[in-house]
């Protein structure tokens, strides 16, 4: 099987299927799902969608969106996977409209705002056993477009071919030795590569029973799946924040929880954000109390440009799976590249291809392989197939350690934030003349320059940032015009500015009454 459509054609009526958490939960077999996919593929064809048409879709963790996604792929259309809006993000629809125009999106799914293109709605009753609507596609055909890092303000659309998708899905199932008896669990957003590829699609290969929940549901009921499943061979992806949340929850509950509860988790992929030593140490610390086998943990590294996974390894213990840098920082090992994928740590050479650093030396991480896209949509191909990840790292004994990033990206609780996006929100505040957002180890700092005679309450600015991005800065300060360093072309010199103003910064909680500039 070399295309997702081949896989969809094989879905059958085993007892296994999907369970969408909710009240009530929605359950169906893979055969039922296949019927809905075929019926809706035909339905979308009848609505005028043609092969190759791009269809914008924010994939929510419910049956409707999963069927719509797979039906569009089945009929040869190309879903464009978009993040849902942030709460209170008034600019979301305008941003999407720009993307629709820029990337020639022909349709939008009904749950998106009005984007000025025809809207599609699924047909919940459209189901058929016939192969109607399910077209033959080539392994080289585009399957889905996902956005790298989730930035819609500075979009990097990644066109995934069927062959890339299948290669990566097979690599994932090889890492955890997936078999038909394994039980999948996912609560990551399906608009995120780890949720979509790892959480949902990888389970189609062996038609694993799969329990789907939203991130919010996991936070409200972190033990729901573990107390529901009868399986003792469960696969899940948990970014660092989710591991931390689960550990804290169990610790808070103490003896009131089944002491073998975590024995069910045999494969926990941990990635999507930096893997913190303290988080893993906390998990290892409670392992015995809740029956968890630490080698069930699979620290991994990946990105949308590579479909999903690039490297992984089975946790070997705190001493072996972390290294301590000279500055005392602990850095997680994310393992060796998956078969067929190359990872080089170095610098970009004159041809655009990487020149490797000496073993053990830090450099930029480059990846190439069957899961890696050829380039961004409507953009030049990656030189020699090498994707410059923008992350920094080092290789030791063939295993990758990701040390940081050169790209402007902040990851908070698995969600990617961009300094530019935060700056745009701050600049909309009354009395703000200029601002700059800087990052350091996934904490971010904000300097605000007020207009003359304006009074800025930084704690209010912090609250506004939190309302929109879900997190407050680690430090804030008022600055004067000219203190925000920029290049002659106006590009922010964030590191230089942070270094200069850091001593004046204070956490928002320490900022009380309104401050005069």
């Amino acid at each position, binding site marked *: 099987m070399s295309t997702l459509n081949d896989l969809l054609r094989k879905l059958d009526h085993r007892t296994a299927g999907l369970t969408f958490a909710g009240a009530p939960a929605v359950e169906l077999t893979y055969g039922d799902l296949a019927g809905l996919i075929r019926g809706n593929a035909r339905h979308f064809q009848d609505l005028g969608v043609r092969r190759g048409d791009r269809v914008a879709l924010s994939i929510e963790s419910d049956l409707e969106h999963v069927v719509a996604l797979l039906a569009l792929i089945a009929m040869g259309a190309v879903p464009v996977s978009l993040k849902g809006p942030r709460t209170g993000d008034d600019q979301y629809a305008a941003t999407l409209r720009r993307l629709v125009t820029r990337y020639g999106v022909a349709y939008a799914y009904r749950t998106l705002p009005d984007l000025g293109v025809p809207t599609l709605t699924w047909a919940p009753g459209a189901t058929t056993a016939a192969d109607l609507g399910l077209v033959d596609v080539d392994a080289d055909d585009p399957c889905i477009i996902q956005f790298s890092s989730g930035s819609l303000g500075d979009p990097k659309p990644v066109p995934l071919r069927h062959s890339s998708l299948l290669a990566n899905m097979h690599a994932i199932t090889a890492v955890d030795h997936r078999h038909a008896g394994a039980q999948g669990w996912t609560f990551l957003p399906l608009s995120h590569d780890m949720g979509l590829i790892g959480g949902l699609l990888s389970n189609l290969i062996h038609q694993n029973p799969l329990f789907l929940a939203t991130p919010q549901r996991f936070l409200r009921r972190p033990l729901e799946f573990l107390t529901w499943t009868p399986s003792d061979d469960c696969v899940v992806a948990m970014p660092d924040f989710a591991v931390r949340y689960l550990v804290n929850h169990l610790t*808070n509950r103490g003896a009131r929880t089944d002491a073998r509860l975590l024995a069910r988790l045999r494969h926990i992929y941990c990635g999507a954000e930096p893997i913190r030593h303290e988080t893993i140490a906390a998990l290892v610390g409670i392992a015995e109390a809740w029956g968890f086998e630490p080698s069930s943990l699979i620290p991994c590294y990946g990105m949308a440009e590579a479909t999903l996974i690039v490297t992984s390894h089975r946790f070997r213990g705190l001493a072996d799976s972390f290294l301590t840098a000279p500055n005392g920082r602990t850095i997680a090992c994310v393992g060796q590249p998956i078969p067929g994928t190359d990872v080089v740590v170095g610098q970009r050479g004159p041809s655009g291809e990487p020149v490797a650093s000496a073993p053990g030396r830090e450099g930029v991480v480059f990846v190439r392989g069957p899961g890696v896209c050829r380039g961004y949509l409507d953009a030049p191909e990656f030189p020699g197939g090498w994707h410059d990840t923008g992350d920094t790292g080092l290789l030791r004994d063939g295993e990758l350690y990701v040390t940081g990033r050169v790209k402007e990206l902040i990851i908070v609780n698995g969600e990617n934030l961009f300094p530019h996006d935060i700056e745009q929100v701050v600049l909309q505040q009354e009395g703000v003349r200029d601002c700059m957002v800087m990052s350091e180890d996934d904490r971010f700092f904000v300097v605000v320059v007020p207009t003359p005679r304006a009074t800025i309450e930084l704690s209010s600015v912090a609250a506004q940032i939190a309302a929109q991005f879900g997190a407050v800065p680690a430090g804030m300060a008022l600055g004067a015009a000219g203190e925000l360093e920029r290049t002659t072309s106006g590009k922010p010199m964030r590191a230089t500015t942070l270094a200069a103003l850091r001593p004046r910064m204070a956490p928002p909680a320490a900022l009380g009454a309104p401050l005069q500039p």
Partner: protein
Amino acid sequence: MLSDIQNHRQDTLESFKACVARRLQMEPAKLYNKSMKLSEIVARSPTASNSIDLMEAVAGAMAELEIDDRVELPAITLQHTVDQLIDEVRAQLAVNGIA
């Protein structure tokens, strides 16, 4: 009898509020004084800097009082207010007859 149950329920709610305040390291008087948005709270709390931290504080308080099997963590965002959070917990305490 009914007033006893209501008083006990009120005690549970007050204990919950005190636990949340302690976990957020904020004075209860300041935390519950006016209907602050939760986004303002994460900007003022020395321990919570994002929505997950805030949910952990609430979930931790429920677990500490051993009401988390019967009272569900409210579906909240940072756009909600602390009053909405407390009202939801109060309603669940009443529905579940926690006394």
